[in-house]
């Protein structure tokens, strides 16, 4: 199954991963990544809040396309891809990607692939609220290097 969602309220990844796993009898492995809002930036400043904005006509359709690509490329039985939007606070989950496959390697690689694309090639814009105000966040050079490993078109 392909389960791709944008959520505007906090979520508990376990409540999604359990049913997702149960929906794939006969699977060989499930790999899950959960990203959370960090409490500090790299320089050490506190993060009060994070806000993710998106563009309705593009964001969800492009995530669905990304999940389909992952399912085909890594021969998955299913993929769960859930992304928060709106304002969130440190410790809250921001993204959850889970892949179910017959074999370990496909599941692990599919999650890595999906996360690299969500970080720097999906239609989200992220800003961080620190003590001195809001700061827009752009992907780091590392993020683009990670993305380039997969040899996919960066915009969809």
């Amino acid at each position, binding site marked *: 199954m392909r389960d791709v969602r944008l959520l505007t309220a906090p979520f508990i990844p376990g409540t999604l991963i359990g049913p997702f796993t149960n929906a794939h009898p006969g699977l060989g492995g499930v790999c899950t990544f959960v*990203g959370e809002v960090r409490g500090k930036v790299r320089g050490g400043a506190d993060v009060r809040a994070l806000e*993710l*904005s998106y*563009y309705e*006509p*593009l964001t969800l359709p492009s995530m669905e396309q990304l999940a389909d690509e992952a399912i085909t490329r890594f021969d998955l039985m299913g993929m769960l891809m859930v*992304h928060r939007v709106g304002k969130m606070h440190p410790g809250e989950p*921001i*993204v959850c990607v889970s892949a179910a496959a017959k074999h370990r390697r496909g599941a692990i690689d599919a999650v890595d692939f999906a*996360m690299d694309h*969500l*970080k*720097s*090639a*999906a*239609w*989200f*814009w*992220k*800003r961080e609220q620190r003590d001195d105000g809001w700061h*827009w*966040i*752009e*992907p780091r050079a590392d993020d683009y290097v990670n993305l380039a490993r997969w040899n996919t078109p960066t*915009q*969809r």
Partner: protein
Amino acid sequence: MGVRIVFLGPLRDLAAKDESEVPAPLDWAGLLEAVGPEVAAQLREERVNVACAGKVLADKTALNAQDGDEVALLPPVSGG
């Protein structure tokens, strides 16, 4: 009805608004003029994309928005 221009991410701050309405049709030159010099300078950069009617344009300078279309200005993204 016209064309609706939507400013996303940091371009929203730069434009100091979420969106604006301009008369149709709207081409690349018209867009640059409609958004003001600061946003226009960003739009000329390769890393900023433009979508029209829900599709990202392969060549944004070929923009040809018709009555009722929405044109979205898409700066570099950051998710996860």
